[in-house]
């Protein structure tokens, strides 16, 4: 098997080509923050939080493959500052009222604010108006809390195979939709499997009946499901 050598934060690592920087880093205990990445789903580089420095260039580590003699820096001051600004934009673009969220205390976005030391949001808050869709009998989506990571879209398409979730519009108008932008409760393709709920990193897609701070998700269910389907 072909072997290559990459340098991550000064550490020489021997690995094989075709793997992503993130995979290699995680395997060697080097922490890179992620949000749209989930083991078991394809990587799309949507959230940009996993950016690293490759010889002065910022690249998403979840979608960039390692190459021989590649030099990667995962935590320079510049990289950390960019990550924090990206996180600030995610907070500013939604209405993440953490105190009154079912996922309070179990939210990947909230945890990232702690990890990336986001003291405040320095860009102006957009305070958008979004429609909450509670037409599904068991689940609901509060788009105020959606970060457009697309994990629901990928879990639904790649693992469940239903392809109920998709994106509509672009830029600040972008949102996730069910079927051809119909009420979720009337989306004919939805199997009500709940995978979108488990993979959603915030309190955007949730189970009904959970109260403030009660919602705990199990995205690892998808990881295990994918493993079993691949390896039997």
């Amino acid at each position: 098997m072909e072997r290559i050598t990459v340098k991550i934060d000064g550490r020489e690592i021997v690995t094989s080509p075709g793997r992503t920087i993130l995979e290699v880093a995680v395997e060697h205990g080097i922490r890179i923050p992620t949000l749209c990445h989930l083991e078991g789903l394809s990587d799309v580089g949507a959230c940009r939080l996993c950016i690293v420095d490759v010889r002065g260039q910022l690249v998403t580590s979840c979608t960039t493959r390692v190459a021989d003699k590649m030099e990667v820096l995962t935590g320079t001051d510049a990289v950390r500052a960019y990550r924090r600004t990206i996180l600030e934009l995610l907070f500013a673009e939604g209405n993440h009222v953490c105190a009154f969220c079912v996922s309070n205390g179990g939210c990947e976005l909230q945890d990232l604010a702690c990890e990336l030391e986001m003291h405040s949001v320095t860009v102006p808050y957009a305070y958008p108006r979004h429609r909450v869709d509670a037409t599904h009998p068991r689940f609901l989506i509060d788009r105020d809390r959606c970060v457009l990571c697309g994990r629901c879209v990928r879990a639904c398409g790649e693992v469940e195979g239903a392809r109920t979730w998709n994106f509509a519009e672009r830029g600040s108008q972008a949102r996730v939709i069910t079927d051809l932008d119909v009420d979720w409760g009337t989306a004919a393709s939805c199997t009500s499997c709940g995978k979108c709920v488990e993979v959603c990193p915030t309190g955007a897609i949730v189970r009904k009946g959970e109260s403030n701070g009660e919602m705990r998700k199990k995205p690892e269910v998808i990881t295990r499901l994918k493993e079993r389907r691949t390896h039997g």
Partner: protein
Amino acid sequence: MAKVRVATMWFSGCAGCHMSLLDIDETLIDLAGMITLFNSPITDLKVFPEEGVDVTLIEGAVGNEEQLHLARTARQKSKILIALGDCAVTGNVPALRNGMDPDEMIANIYGDKVTSNGALPYEAVPHLLGRVRPLAEVVHVDYFLHGCPPPAGLIAKAVLALVAGKTPELAGPDLKFG
């Protein structure tokens, strides 16, 4: 040692942050020996002392014209300004009205819903701003205490550090919203 001069203010918020401040238990007794508390909902004093204060903690978002004015006064009169809690830091719950028209909202709430006295509250109370703003959008803020409310221990840690002339070390779980 001269006592540290402290003020606290309450803008658009629920008073929960002040409750959490009072919830620092026996630290209150230690603190009482180290600070002089000037204008605050706790003392019920309304105006800043002429010579200003060392530290002001502000709970709540900036939601009306009076609060905007008071935020600017607080900045002028304080060496260190602290955003106390999620409403002051992010806008939080009060900011849920952003995107709605304040006049329409007031007409809807106080207009035809009130049977005894249909007057809209414009005379005796400050006008609402077009949108509720986090404190740091209107004045420079030195430290942000996250939480709804910030845990009592976090408030104690920050205030004790400042009283001792040190920089509060706010990291990791201290930065948890909600």
